[in-house]
């Protein structure tokens, strides 16, 4: 009797012991995500240089030209007369210069109002930066302690303007635009290169290859490639694409390097799908007089499509988050303009995040958090899509 109870207790203790790590890992993940999200918002006391105004929502509001209205108010506050203001707003070159140095944003909780227009300049001085909760508790003290000309905002680092701003040495002005565009270019090219290669190799292995030494070599090699550290692909890309082919540190070199890296992912997923297609389908097609390539491309591949697409999505997700190879092949850390083609210098999402994490200024941690939230959101969408596809089109033959 006692022995039986002891056994039951030990069994239960073991059950708890193996369940704990999973729960712990999930709790840790949840805690990190919360911390990350709260890091994307901060309370800031800023002392503008030049002007010192914020404008009420209604003052600057207009459906078509809020920017002009707010800039007019701002310039008037800086002491320009109407003729100068009109000249600036009409001249595209002057507008561009103004936009490069200043940013017009609709901010939350600026100066105690729910919404205010704020013109932030690259020369604004940050006086204080408080976390979301801490700042909320101290908001009365903070607004009471404002010196003339200073403003208190709730700054959501991850707002719409974050996607349109360029890289900058000033945290307030830094945004994702070049990194997003760079990553899009890379992903697009990776899909063009890696999908045909990966799917082709998978078809060859499943439908064409005989049982011989070459096939076995291919198999062993593929499994090993999937385990090669990504930084080694970086060394390969640096030597072959950047130097030997003389491409230099451009988008095409990055796309070629990452393509080699993700081909095994595409191959493995596609093979699984192709292997799942029952032979009766192939035999039926041959029976109708189809040639081998017709069987492969009109029967087998369409039947395996959901696995292939899942593989492609996973490959894209992998390529999107890879940092080390891009660092080694020399992704630019600071790109002045937007990349405009496969031979342009570029930066990519993970590289931009790496740069921001490495910055000394405390505020860049907020910018980095905002960037990470964007990256993780995109990846979650991709993984969600893969998961859904697998569930929905999981055929039971």
């Amino acid at each position, binding site marked *: 009797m006692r022995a039986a109870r002891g056994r039951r207790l030990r069994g239960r203790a073991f059950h708890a012991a193996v369940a704990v790590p999973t729960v712990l890992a999930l709790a840790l993940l949840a805690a990190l995500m919360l911390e990350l999200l709260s890091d994307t918002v901060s309370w800031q006391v800023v002392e503008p240089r030049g002007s010192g105004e914020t404008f009420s929502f209604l003052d600057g509001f207009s459906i078509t030209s809020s920017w002009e209205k707010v800039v007019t108010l701002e310039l008037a506050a800086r002491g320009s007369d109407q003729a100068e203001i009109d000249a600036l707003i009409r001249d595209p070159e002057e507008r561009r210069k103004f936009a490069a140095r200043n940013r017009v944003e609709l901010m939350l909780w600026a100066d105690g109002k729910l919404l205010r227009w704020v013109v932030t300049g690259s020369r604004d001085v940050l006086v204080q930066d408080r976390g979301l909760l801490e700042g909320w508790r101290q908001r009365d003290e903070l607004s009471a302690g404002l010196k003339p000309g200073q403003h208190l905002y709730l700054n959501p680092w991850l707002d719409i303007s974050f996607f349109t701003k360029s890289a900058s040495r000033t945290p307030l002005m830094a945004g994702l635009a070049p990194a997003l565009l760079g990553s899009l270019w890379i992903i697009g090219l990776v899909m063009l290169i890696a999908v045909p*290669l990966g799917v082709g*190799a998978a078809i060859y292995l499943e439908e064409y290859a005989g049982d011989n030494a070459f096939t076995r070599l291919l198999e062993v090699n593929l499994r090993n490639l999937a385990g090669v*550290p990504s930084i080694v*692909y970086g060394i390969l890309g640096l030597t072959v694409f950047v130097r030997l082919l003389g491409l230099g540190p451009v988008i095409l070199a990055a796309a070629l390097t990452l393509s080699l890296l993700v081909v095994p992912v595409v191959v493995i997923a596609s093979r699984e799908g192709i292997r799942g297609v029952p032979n009766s389908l192939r035999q039926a097609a041959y029976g109708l007089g189809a040639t081998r390539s017709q069987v492969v491309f009109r029967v087998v591949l369409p039947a395996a499509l959901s696995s292939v697409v899942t593989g492609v999505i996973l490959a894209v997700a992998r390529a999107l988050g890879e940092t080390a190879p891009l660092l080694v092949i020399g992704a630019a850390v600071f790109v002045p303009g937007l990349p405009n083609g496969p031979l342009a210098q570029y930066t990519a999402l993970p590289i931009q995040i790496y740069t921001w*994490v490495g910055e000394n200024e405390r505020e860049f941690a907020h910018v980095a958090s905002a960037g990470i939230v964007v990256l993780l959101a995109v990846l979650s969408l991709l993984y969600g899509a893969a998961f859904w596809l697998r569930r929905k089109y999981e055929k039971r033959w």
Partner: protein
Amino acid sequence: MSTAGGGGNGMGRALRLSRSETRRERLVAILLGLAALLTVLTTVAVVIVLARETFEFFRDPLVSVWEFLTGDRWTPLFADKHFGILPLVTGTLLVTVLAVLVGVPMGLASAIYLSEYAPPARRRTLKGILELLAGIPTVVLGFFALSYVTPVLQGLIPGVKFFNALSAGLVMGVMILPTVSSLASDALQAVPLSLREAGYGLGGSKLDVILKVLLPAAFSGLAAAVILAFSRAVGETMIVSLAAGQRPILTFDPRETIATMTSFIVQAATGDQPVGSLAARSLYAVGAVLFGLTLLMNLASQALVRRFRERYE
């Protein structure tokens, strides 16, 4: 492998194809074969690139193979150059061992839970979440280590540096957890039901069956999972470059700032080393060691998996 169509290159024999059709069929086969061949070429290119530059590196009079393997100073980027890879190897080992100490027990436990205890619906959800965890880019994990884990550690343990091996190792443990968990639970699920039933038939409790039947039966599969996790930790770059620092010193103190093979490669590649200089070549020598190590571990892991499969399938 398809059995339909007769295998081999039998097309055009069973059916009478026109010459253009035959030509097209052959072209398709060749193109597909080329795609497969390219995966082999990738490996060949990696080996050639690493071997050539490493050979050049060792031909330099300043470098000797003996010093490279046994020297305890690694300063290729300084004026006084020393090329002893030991500090990088111990740095890598330190972080990897920490990661394995965290990731393997947790991964194995979660594999046992997922494959033996969790009800099917919960297993699917948890597996999905673990996959998501595996998909977090390592640059993000590096940020977590640096900004969230390190401050906590500094509060708990005296003497923890801002860049330290401990924080990187712990977070890397979380990184390898999904790998261990998913491979190990595959191995456990592959153990035939008859073995479990025999265990219960002998009067074993669930715990007895897991500890005395399943784990020994799945041993080589579990070992393969652990070795693969080891290999992933050795090759991991971003967590260590962000959170562990870039100071190659020979130490086993996890509170210290260290450098690993991967973080050195990043450091050397992002600095302005002239192409062909000794410092630039040292990157390839380190890369070759890294590639060799991970290759050995991957091969060992595959051999174990094969043995495991042969026994039960």
